[in-house]
């Protein structure tokens, strides 16, 4: 599978138009329904290659797109979400510098 190709499991004649937010492989138990005792085996079953990880991130991105950005009448919500996520991200990467600005020694 090269860059820009469809996933191997995707078959246009069966699945119809390609949905980038969708996982076309064999579905496992959703993470929300996994019992604590089964988490280890559930994680062991995961495909941990970089391409699979990128695929998961891409699907999450497109799920967010389809839910908040792509509908017909969108409000400001996706922009605010992006703004807050960016604030959190940049706060996290700058935390090493920001923490020197603390006002109190003891908390």
């Amino acid at each position, binding site marked *: 599978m090269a860059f820009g190709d*469809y996933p191997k499991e995707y078959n*246009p004649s069966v699945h119809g138009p390609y*949905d980038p937010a969708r996982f076309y492989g064999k579905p496992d138990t959703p993470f929300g329904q996994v019992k604590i005792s089964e988490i280890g085996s559930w994680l062991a079953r995961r495909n941990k290659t970089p391409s699979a990880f990128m695929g998961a991130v891409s699907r999450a991105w497109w799920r967010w797109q389809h839910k908040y950005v792509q509908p017909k*009448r969108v409000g*400001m919500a996706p922009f*605010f*979400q992006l703004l*807050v996520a960016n604030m959190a991200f940049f706060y996290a990467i700058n935390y090493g510098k920001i923490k020197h600005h*603390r006002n109190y020694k003891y*908390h």
Partner: protein
Amino acid sequence: MLSRVALRSVVARQSAPTALVARTSASDACGVRDEKNFPRPIRGEPGKVRLGFIPEEWFQFFHSKTGVTGPYTFGAGLITYLFSKEIYVMEHEYYTGLSIFVMVYYATVKFGPPISKWLDKEVDQIETDLNQGRVETVKSLEEAIVTEKDAQWRAQGQELLIQAKKENVLLQLEAAYRERLMNTYQEVKRRLDFQLEKAALERRFEQKHLVDWVITNVSKAITPDQEKQTLDRCIADLAALAQK
């Protein structure tokens, strides 16, 4: 829209062998379209959010366990904890952020509704424009159906008309037949009358001729003696009658 562009560019970037595989796999025996598990994606309504950006599902996740105020309590408690332990440090950028938040809030409240109204109008306009061709095609096809039905109705009327015309022709044929019959009858009667009249005339002429001939011959056969004898006899008869 963007996703479609992305899809199209992905399709365009497909290498030739992959595209060929995708095309040939459509004719596979197992390649039956699974409409139930993989329905065609539709463009839905945007996801609900609270406080401008927090997904409604997160509040629902708390709702079953902590009630309505639970998520707010959690959020306020989390923020208080972050402030209190200075995990979130209130340095100068924090106050910049506060002032920016005030500006963004004011702008959203003040300009949000008119802008969203205008954008909704634009979206409706675009959708109407995109649909217009289809709608007009449907309309014209419906009109064509109505016209076709009308034409069929007219054709049925034509059949009636042709039937009536056929009946009319039959009536004319009948009339012509009867007229000729009458004509024949009259002609035959005329000829028969002629024959009758001719026969009667001939008979009359023959009779007259015979009578004339008989009278002529009889008067020719009477001699003066006979005449005189008859005359004498007549006088004698008259005298005998006069005596009585």
